[in-house]
């Protein structure tokens, strides 16, 4: 026993090294789990306050761009509202209102305080959290398109998994043909994302619009993701290799909207019961 202690003491540096590395490895693995660690990320109070302050200073220099973008968004929304109102008038639909369907989604506006686009696993920190009703799993979109989903929330802040994360998959479809595939980033170019599992018999073309499919209840249906930039089909592959140009420039992200789906619990529980019957 004494010799064992002496042995451990003699190589204490190596054993400490081993112990720390194992602990780090455990942290890495733990952090890769969806909806994991709550406290040791950029949504914890001290870290978020430091980042917030720094972002406030930086934002001052981007105000002009942000204002232009928001004004543009306002104009688009006003136009859409007018069109919708005209339709309602024309067809006399103003009586037909299903409150449950209309209030299916709520949108919570949030400011991006921390963002990266160059790592393999990119995350975004926003300034809304559990106090505003955010929970892990909610979808996040911007005026330009899909952004990601909420990974973990603290009281006042939340960390999102960006679409630019090699672990993130989003069910999506080609708007023109209606075929489903999966969106996943390959970790290289932050402007391009891969569309996978589109089978050979489909004819995707450069310029086709890719939108979310609404099959996973995270994203609402038909949120824009991007436009096909490049289509490849190798001889032996059962699927196309498609590069999609993202609609949202992730390096210029300033404001996002968190989508709170009020019917999500219903859809989820229905799907769970259905799966239960099949087995």
């Amino acid at each position: 026993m004494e010799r064992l202690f002496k042995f451990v003491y003699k190589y204490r540096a190596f054993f400490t090294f081993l112990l720390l590395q194992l602990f780090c490895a455990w942290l890495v693995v733990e952090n890769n789990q969806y909806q994991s660690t709550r406290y040791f990320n950029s949504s914890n109070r001290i870290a978020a306050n430091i980042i917030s302050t720094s972002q406030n200073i930086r934002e001052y220099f981007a105000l002009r761009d942000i204002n232009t973008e928001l004004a543009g968004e306002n104009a688009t929304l006003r136009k859409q509202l007018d069109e919708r109102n005209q339709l309602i008038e024309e067809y006399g639909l103003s009586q037909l209102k299903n409150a449950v369907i209309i209030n299916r989604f709520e949108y919570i506006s949030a400011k991006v305080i921390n963002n990266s686009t160059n790592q393999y696993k990119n995350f975004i920190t926003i300034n809304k959290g559990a106090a505003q009703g955010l929970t892990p799993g909610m979808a996040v979109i911007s005026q330009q398109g899909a952004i990601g989903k909420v990974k973990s929330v603290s009281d006042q802040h939340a960390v999102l998994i960006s679409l630019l994360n090699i672990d993130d998959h989003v069910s999506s479809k080609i708007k023109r043909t209606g075929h489903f595939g999966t969106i996943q980033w390959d970790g290289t170019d932050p402007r391009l994302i891969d569309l996978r599992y589109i089978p050979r018999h489909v004819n995707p073309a450069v310029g086709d619009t890719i939108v979310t499919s609404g099959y996973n209840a995270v994203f609402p249906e038909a949120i824009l993701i991007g436009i096909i930039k490049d289509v490849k089909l190798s001889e032996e592959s059962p699927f196309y290799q498609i590069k999609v140009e993202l609609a949202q420039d992730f390096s210029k992200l300033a404001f996002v909207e968190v989508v709170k789906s009020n019917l999500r619990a219903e859809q989820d529980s229905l799907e769970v019961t259905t799966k239960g019957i099949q087995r």
Partner: protein
Amino acid sequence: MSKSGVIHFFLFFVYALAQVLLLKNLVLFNTAFCFLYVVFILLLPVETNNLLLMLIGFLLGFTIDIFYDSLGLHAMALVAVGYVRNYWLGVITPQGGYDSGVTPTLASNGLQWFLIYSIPLLFFHHTILFFVEAAGFSRFGFTLLKVIMSLLFTLSVVLILQYFSIERRR
């Protein structure tokens, strides 16, 4: 705590804040990162204990990780550097050995020695960091490109800062 201990205590926060507020946003060509905080471990006094190096490495890496949302990743790479550093210092001891209390800087041992000292350690750090982040070797080419570009970028910044600190001492 000695005078040098107090200075290093403050430097810890300077390196950490510089990394997460400034250098995190500074990425060239989408591949070249500047991980200046590694230098904090490299520039601790020569006789610093292995255990202490690893412990400081862990704390610094963990702090960086909180802001990068990559828990454990930077800590892992920096602990490894802390473990290897003293062995590497032993291998490349200049003729006549190190003076007591000296820090392994460019000023104390010259440019050639400093390059031999820092390049392998930075390469080691970046390799662990990027390959663990990529979770394997499936993106080997691009990850290696990131390692090399980041090495060049970090090394340039380190050398510039080293030359600045020589000027100051004279």
